[in-house]
């Protein structure tokens, strides 16, 4: 069946993106539905692909080249779930765009950017080739630049472009050097040949990779763009950044770490672990002080990226892959994608920027308030929501593997995170608004979408084994 080829997940959006300008000359109004088409197709395709994929990784070869030489796409049920989560949230963002932000910018550029970003994100998640990853990363990033200027946030975007370009330059150097040394661009093969290389070379390469990916994955040194871009971007844009981009980029980082470096280079993971923890702590500390909601979520997003990367690094640090920890990190990643999309979309729908302005909005829009709280409570790991389990598993694995410093940092960070998110909820439901501005209208379509997301979070909260089964085995069945 034709739907079975995962390449369609990339190709269809890409094709549709290129068709948009062509289309627009015929049906001007219909253009905006093309991203929906792309997103909808991807969601359905991913949903169809998942049951057929086993826990093992299936490698799809592109262009008739044997997998080690040509570009290959990886697909497994776990990757499928990632794709599903990412595309679902993207679809949500696109709906939000169509319903609320259609008139914000050029009616042509943004549909293209959204569709392109979708294609790029899927590519980042699935590709098994380093240079291909670079291409998708850049594709997503450029789409991201466009999305970031949606609300005329030029300065934040400028930061984003510069930092991201620096990152990609690093990435290219690293990729090229790796190719030169191992003879492969294919991640698995490059990783396999890595053993013959000297330690200094590997360490330099690994640092370059870490730096390169840090800009996309919101890790510390190059994540200065996150807060201003979140703050300045449109509602759909912030969802794209928080869920689609960072989700895909984090997964790409995990993939590079797991497939290229594997578990044999403790020092690589050690460095990443420290970096992740510092990001986690710094992100939460910065978020704690924010009164601008989007900036708050942005810093929290930074912190969560740090947490996920640190957990993955910790899982691979000691020469053995700790499945439990790895799975917990992936669980956290998926929870993060879903919950953050819900929260950001909710904030966008309320149309208020700061803690004070949002006061009492949750009571005026009850359902929206309920959905946002589902997202927030999931983010801070309260029982009944998906986040509880990811937090629980993380603690279990961390304590179980006697990583007490990590546990301490993680729990302290979670403590402050809980504090500011609860403060947000409090203000949402019980505060008094300082602005007299009326809330924007919300259509029932959006409610349905939010409901789906919230229901998903609660469903996982009550039956965590759905996700456990999905994420476990990524490491076991092995992308390796």
């Amino acid at each position: 069946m034709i739907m079975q080829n995962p390449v369609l997940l990339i190709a269809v959006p890409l094709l549709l993106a290129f068709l948009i300008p062509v289309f627009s000359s015929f049906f001007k109004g219909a253009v905006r539905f093309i991203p929906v088409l792309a997103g909808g197709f991807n969601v359905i395709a991913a949903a169809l692909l998942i049951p057929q994929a086993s826990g093992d990784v299936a490698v799809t070869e592109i262009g008739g080249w044997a997998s080690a030489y040509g570009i290959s796409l990886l697909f497994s049920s776990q990757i499928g779930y990632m794709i599903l989560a990412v595309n679902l949230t993207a679809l949500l963002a696109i709906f939000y765009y169509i319903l609320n932000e259609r008139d914000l910018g050029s009616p042509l550029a943004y549909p293209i950017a959204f569709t392109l970003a979708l294609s790029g994100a899927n590519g980042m998640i699935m590709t098994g080739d380093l240079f291909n990853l670079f291409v998708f990363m850049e594709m997503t990033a450029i789409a991201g630049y466009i999305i970031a200027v949606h609300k005329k946030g030029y300065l934040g975007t400028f930061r984003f472009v510069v930092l991201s370009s620096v990152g990609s330059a690093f990435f290219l150097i690293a990729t090229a050097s790796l190719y030169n040394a191992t003879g492969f661009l294919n991640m698995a093969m490059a990783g396999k040949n890595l053993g013959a290389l000297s330690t200094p070379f590997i360490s330099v390469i690994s640092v370059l990779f870490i730096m390169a990916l840090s800009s996309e994955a919101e890790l510390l040194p190059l994540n200065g763009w996150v807060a201003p871009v979140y703050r300045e971007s449109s509602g759909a844009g912030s969802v794209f950044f928080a869920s689609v981009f960072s989700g895909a980029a984090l997964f790409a980082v995990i993939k590079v770490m797991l497939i290229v470096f594997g578990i044999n280079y403790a020092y690589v993971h050690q460095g990443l672990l420290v970096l992740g923890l510092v990001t986690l702590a710094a992100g939460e500390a910065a978020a704690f002080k924010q009164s601008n909601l989007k900036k708050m979520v942005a810093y929290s997003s930074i912190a969560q990226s740090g947490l996920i990367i640190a957990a993955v690094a910790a899982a691979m640090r000691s020469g053995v892959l700790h499945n439990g920890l790895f799975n917990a990190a992936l669980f956290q990643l998926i929870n993060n994608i879903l919950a953050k999309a819900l929260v950001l979309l909710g904030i966008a729908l309320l149309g208020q920027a700061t803690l004070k302005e949002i006061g009492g909005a949750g009571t005026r829009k009850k359902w929206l308030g309920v959905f946002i709280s589902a997202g927030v409570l999931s983010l801070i790991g309260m029982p009944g929501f998906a986040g509880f389990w990811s937090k629980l598993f993380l603690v279990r694995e961390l304590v179980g593997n006697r990583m007490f410093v990590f546990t301490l940092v993680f729990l302290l960070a979670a403590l402050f995170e809980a504090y500011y998110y609860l403060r947000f909820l409090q203000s949402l439901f019980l505060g008094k608004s300082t602005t007299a501005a009326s809330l924007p209208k919300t259509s029932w379509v959006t409610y349905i979408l939010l409901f789906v997301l919230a229901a998903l979070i609660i469903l996982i909260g009550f039956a965590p084994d759905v996700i456990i089964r999905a994420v476990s085995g990524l490491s076991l069945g092995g992308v390796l």
Partner: protein
Amino acid sequence: MGHEWLSLWSFLYGPLSIFLVGLYGLLTQKNLIKMAISINIMDYGVNLFIISLGYVPSAEAPIYTDAVKTYLPVFADPLPQALVLTAIVISVAVTAFILALTIKIHSQYGTTDLTKLGEMEL
């Protein structure tokens, strides 16, 4: 081998120094246009580096012709050249974007100086 250092310089250190020049620009320059230029320089360095990786001493261009069948020559690595094409395209796109952004920033804030913009930012 006398030209060892030469090839090392032209293939490794040279491109890397260009890259570092770009990096230096980013570290010190406050003007948005200059930053765009710095990024561009960085990209050139990287591209040059990639191209140079494909270099094989006294190799031929990797073009498969009839003549090749007869004497099995040493080919230069074609892949970096393919890669660099993509990279160049991307860097052009990014540069264009940055410049567009700079124009927008200038028209909105009236300056391209980062220190002055920093006050408006955040």
